[in-house]
């Protein structure tokens, strides 16, 4: 006998968020670093930024982070970064 069952999932709400536009150039841009405070995160971010500095003359102008990797970043932190840099480097890992 046919039955009907409810779907147990939920859809993510439409937020209107879209990826930022691709940068037209990298030369001389300002970099922001954002760490999740895991061990060696700072090192990874610094070394990655150093490659941008070497190849494109970029400069690290801001460093932010969150003290607990498992909590979301505070909106004020991200807004502050976005206002002062051209692109941000962050990483996900353990």
């Amino acid at each position, binding site marked *: 006998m046919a039955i*009907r*069952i409810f779907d147990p999932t939920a*859809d993510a*709400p439409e937020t209107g968020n879209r990826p930022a536009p691709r940068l037209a150039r990298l030369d001389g841009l300002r970099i922001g670093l954002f760490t999740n405070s895991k061990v060696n995160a700072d090192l990874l971010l610094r070394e990655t930024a150093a490659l941008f500095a070497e190849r494109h003359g970029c400069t690290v102008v801001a460093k932010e982070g969150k003290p607990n990797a498992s*909590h*979301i970043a505070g909106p004020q932190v991200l807004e502050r970064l976005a206002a002062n840099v051209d692109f941000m480097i962050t990483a996900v890992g*353990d």
Partner: protein
Amino acid sequence: MTTTTAAPRLHELADEGSAIDFCYEQGWTDGLPVVPPTEARVEATLAWAGRPPEEVVATHPPTGRACTVHAAAVNAVMAGCLPEYFPVVVAALEALNDPDYAFHGSSASTGGSAPLLIVSGPIADEIGMNSGVNVFGSGNRANATIGRAIRLILLNVFRMTPAIADRSTTGWPGKYSACIAEDESRSPWEPLRVALGIPEEVSAVTVFAASGFHNIENHYTNDPEALLSTFADSMRSLGALSAGQSVIVMSPEHAQIAASRGFTRPDVQEYLYAHAWRPRGDLRRAGKIPADAPGADDEPVHRGLSPNDILLLVAGGEAGGHSAFISSWSRGRGSLFQTKPIGVCLDC
């Protein structure tokens, strides 16, 4: 980010067996077959909610996905819950939703924690929960399905899918279901919920991000301090030592020994906190902290930050010198246990 919920969707299947297979095909299970959430079963469960089905109980911070009362009921049916278990599921979900519990982080982390539900109060007997023999094991419908409902909500509503959003390195069996009841009748101390500030006549559920289960065996001593030193030794193990919280589920036999010389609940908590420590040098030599981490080698590093970080309750069979230490998720204090009353609002 605003949170809106769409109307519940229905799927038509040929029969119950096809529905079970369909749920597997959609990835809606924990690996075990689920009970098809038909309209009749969900409606019967919603009758125990005490609130509108469209009301949002929990929201996922990273995605904004919302778990309504209706969605919780659908997953509770799938878990095998009887309708009368639903108030416990809802209260546990409310506890999970507290930002200080951090359910996203604790579910996504390599740490692989599971929400451990501890029910304290009259409802435990009313719905037939197990607080005695084999309390953490299989065989009791209420214990098994209430914990499972929470796991299915995490999987289906919040999409904490293993290997995608859930990056647990090992996980542990508690991720199927981890739900127990306190045995007040065999406890020498006040009920856990009373110690946590809930009126005795009100039932409550505490949710704790549990990373694993350590059996603590001591069959010989009748000396409380000797016994508690066994507990402290497990709590200070290198693999578990952190600033996080702890759950101690003490068997009735061990609890009677601890109380035999007048140890109160706070006395036990203070003794365990005071004795569950290692010198910082141990952590440095084991590579658990960087070699240049601040602090002297002989500085004590305690498990937790205070005796109040130790949740102590009595449960388990009357026979056997076996108790349990449940360690917390995270290398720090990523999640703090949360307690909610069941079926009532104390702050309203």
